[in-house]
């Protein structure tokens, strides 16, 4: 009996560590979506009600010598509905994914896509010049080029041959 209990405990702790790993990997991307309540028609309201309150907005942060490059997956957005702000070393991206489609009456079999307002904060690896930030939006992916501040750049010191 003690042996069985030990095995069960071990199996359970494995499940737990797998779960913790999953949470740590995904929880940052897990973003809360909330309805703004201004859906245009009945169908949009239905979809908003059925859609999940959480969605995964996967980000990617990459640092080069001169800039920090951030990619965020925000499919189906109008770039005008995105609000990007930089506070020190914290990037905030807020937006609203609206239900914008022409549709007839019908019934939803599957609703997995999240709709509504969201906000996500992403820590930046170094200080950036927010005023010189360049933003692009292609195929549902927001790409931000955030130039690093001069003082934040790594200086390479050349070694002269004596």
């Amino acid at each position, binding site marked *: 009996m003690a042996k*069985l*209990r030990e095995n*069960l405990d071990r199996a*359970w702790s494995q*499940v737990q560590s797998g*779960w913790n790993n999953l949470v740590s*990997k*995904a929880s*940052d*991307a*897990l973003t809360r979506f909330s309805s703004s309540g201004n859906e245009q028609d009945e169908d949009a309201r239905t*979809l908003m009600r059925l*859609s*999940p309150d*959480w*969605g*995964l907005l*996967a*980000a*990617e*942060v*990459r*640092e*080069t010598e001169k800039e920090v490059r951030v*990619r965020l*997956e*925000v*499919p*189906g*957005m*109008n770039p005008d509905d995105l609000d990007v702000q930089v506070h020190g070393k914290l990037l905030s991206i807020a937006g609203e994914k609206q239900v914008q*489609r022409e*549709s*007839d*009456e*019908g*019934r*939803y*079999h*599957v*609703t*997995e*896509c*999240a709709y509504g307002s969201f906000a996500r904060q*992403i820590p930046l*690896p170094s200080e950036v010049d927010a005023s010189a930030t360049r933003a692009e*939006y292609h*195929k*549902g*992916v927001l790409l931000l080029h955030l130039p690093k501040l001069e003082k934040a750049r790594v200086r390479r010191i050349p070694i002269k041959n004596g």
Partner: protein
Amino acid sequence: MTLMKRNPWTLFDEFNRVFPSVLTDDDSRVVGSNWSPAVDIKEEEGRFVIHADIPGVAPEDIDISMEQGVLTIKGERKHESEEEKEGYHRIEREYGSFMRRFALPENVEADQITASSKDGVVELILPKAEKKAEPTRIKIV
């Protein structure tokens, strides 16, 4: 009974609640693909309308097919450029192949399916096949 200190099923309920788009019971996700896009499937009177969030994938890298009542959406997300291999501080995006499969409850006209893509959302329109007025009778000779 003290053998089971915690009930693991509450964890799975929690998981399903928190990750509704990761685990669904429609059995359509295929083991072997790296990720799977979230979809909305709506049935209207004469058609099905499917929206799939597939950000960062070019339309030419998405393959849609219909066979024996099963719709397959698959493709691959590629890295934007080969040089971008270093300097990452955060990687949450999944690259590589994805696949979803759906058995549709009614027949659709496979050759009438249309697909379009905008801002990383693929829209599929699947017109239903016209119902036959009379069921075919098979005579027993």
